[in-house]
């Protein structure tokens, strides 16, 4: 086992043991924090597919996070308000079932990522960063002005959506569900990493000309990566909305995009568990520093600067001392 493998295993063990301990000690708040970690990690794993594998610096992933959130919000809101979502061609009252919501969130995010990707991937470098940022703002302003679903105030969903066979209102059961989703997605990401597609995508990031020379089209590879990445982040958005039982335009804000990106960089770009480590550290800092000082963002900023300027390969890189496997 490599050192990175050991670190990864330790991280997973932590994610099982800490909430387990919290459950026996009756520390419900810790379980909620852990759920937040897992869901944010999922969003960042999604971004890492575009960013780490594909080299696509997207500063607009809040689009998918917010879309996932609003998918959950809108579907559940119609059930809650007894107003059918649509009556033609058949009566659809919305849904409170998580699997259905997840499917809708993933499909919607993937479609949106396809359209946005089609436009944005015509550009590269700085243009790509700025245009994805601008798309994020477009959705943000749209959600603010769309008064049918709460506009600026957002939507509250009073009862968490259900999952067959589980009581999702019980924090530890909801945590377990989110954790399982994360593990499945991590497994998928690791397979993707080693698949023919993953290798081609890696190559397209490092040397697009050569990839083109052997008959592959970098644009198609990048677009596929962007769609997968958006779909995963959308799924995380649906879970995040269910955790808070609330969606608001803040999920579309560019600070959200920045935060998801921070998670990836803090942990280590292109490392499978980088986003997970990033999310653990971020939520812990938010909690600990937030208690110490109202101005905790200053310390977060200083820490980020230090990581960017002096630590190569993020926190996982600092611990394992090796460059990411694909470099």
């Amino acid at each position: 086992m490599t050192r990175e493998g050991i670190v990864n295993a330790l991280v997973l063990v932590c994610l099982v043991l800490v909430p387990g301990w919290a459950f026996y000690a009756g520390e419900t708040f810790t379980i909620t924090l852990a759920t937040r970690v897992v869901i944010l990690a999922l969003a960042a794993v999604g971004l890492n597919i575009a960013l780490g594998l594909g080299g696509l610096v997207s500063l607009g992933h809040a689009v998918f996070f917010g879309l996932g959130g609003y998918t959950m919000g809108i579907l559940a809101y119609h059930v809650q308000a007894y107003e059918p979502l649509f009556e033609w061609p058949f009566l659809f009252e919305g849904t409170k079932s998580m699997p259905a919501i997840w499917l809708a969130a993933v499909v919607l995010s993937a479609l949106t990522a396809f359209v946005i990707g089609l436009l944005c991937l015509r550009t590269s470098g700085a243009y790509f960063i700025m245009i994805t940022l601008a798309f994020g703002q477009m959705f943000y302003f749209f959600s603010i002005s769309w008064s049918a679903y709460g506009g600026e105030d957002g939507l509250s969903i009073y009862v968490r959506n259900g999952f067959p066979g589980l009581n999702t209102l019980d924090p530890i059961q909801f945590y377990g569900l989110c954790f399982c989703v994360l593990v499945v997605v991590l497994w998928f990401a690791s397979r993707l990493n080693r698949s023919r597609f993953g290798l081609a995508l890696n190559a397209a990031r490092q040397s697009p000309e050569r990839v083109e020379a052997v008959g592959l089209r970098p644009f198609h590879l990048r677009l596929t990566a962007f769609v997968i990445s958006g779909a995963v982040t959308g799924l995380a958005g649906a879970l995040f909305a269910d955790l808070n039982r609330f969606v608001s335009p803040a999920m579309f804000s560019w600070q959200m995009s920045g935060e998801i990106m921070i998670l990836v960089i803090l942990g280590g770009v292109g490392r499978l568990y980088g986003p997970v480590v990033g999310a653990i550290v971020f939520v812990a800092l938010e909690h600990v520093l937030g208690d110490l000082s109202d101005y905790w963002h200053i310390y977060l900023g200083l820490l980020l600067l230090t990581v960017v300027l002096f630590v190569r390969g993020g926190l996982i890189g600092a611990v394992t001392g090796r460059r990411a496997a694909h470099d």
Partner: protein
Amino acid sequence: MSLVLIAEQVLNGLQFGIMLFLMAAGLTLIFGVMGLINLAHGSLYMVGAFCAAAVAGATGSFLLGLVAALAGAALAGALVEIVVIRRLYAKDHLDQVLATFALILIFSEGTRWLFGSFPLYLNVPEYLSGPVTLPGGIEYPVYRLTLIVIGLVVALGLFLLIGKTRIGVQIRAGENDREMIAALGIDIGRLYTIVFALGAALAGLAGALVGAIQSVQVGMGEPVLILAFVVIVIGGIGSIKGTLIGALLVGLTQTLGGIFLPELMKIFMAPSAATSVGASLASMAIYVLMAAVLIVRPTGLFGARA
């Protein structure tokens, strides 16, 4: 909907656009010369506004406030360049985005710590308040008209600086070939600091000027920053001319869209629905404009390279 109203809105759009230009010009210069994406540019805008509000509040002089905004933002810019930004030139865009995002956090929370969360107010001076009657019977605030004039003068100054002076030659050379001008004996580190401070001063000036119309508060820079990004993407990164045209396009689209799209929608649907749909469309209009420009020209209207 009278002609006078339309003319007023066009002037508002121009005023907004020219302020965006001040902001975007620095951003595009910094990107063009140093290849740096500076998310913290909005913080320098905020620094300018706070310097102006603090000094104008203490001395009672709006002009001194403006001078303070220019000096404060330039100083903050130079300091940040020397301490942090300098180490980022050789890094990739991702690291630049993150590091400058971190700078936003530090600047915003630092300002909140110094000045508190409540907005400050910067008053328009006596001699610039009140309306003026323009030809055609249009009543328009003197202050906003002054903003347009100041903006145009600064834009002209910037074109002359870039086009006619020695430092302008160096900046243009820096955009084309950094290694070469370093090899020719120009102190490239000093040039970078000057360009960064110049961009910061322009942002600070914009912040102070706009601060007198809106309130001066933490986080005021970020919405403008994103619009400035849209401007330079439309205009083509690195091109001052493109930035000016992009800024005016964005300013006019934003202002006129907010007024006319709801009216336009009323032709097709019920008034109440038209207002909300129109407002939604108006808030998205500039991003649609940007997407349209990029589909036709992926490097912006006047951009040379990707």
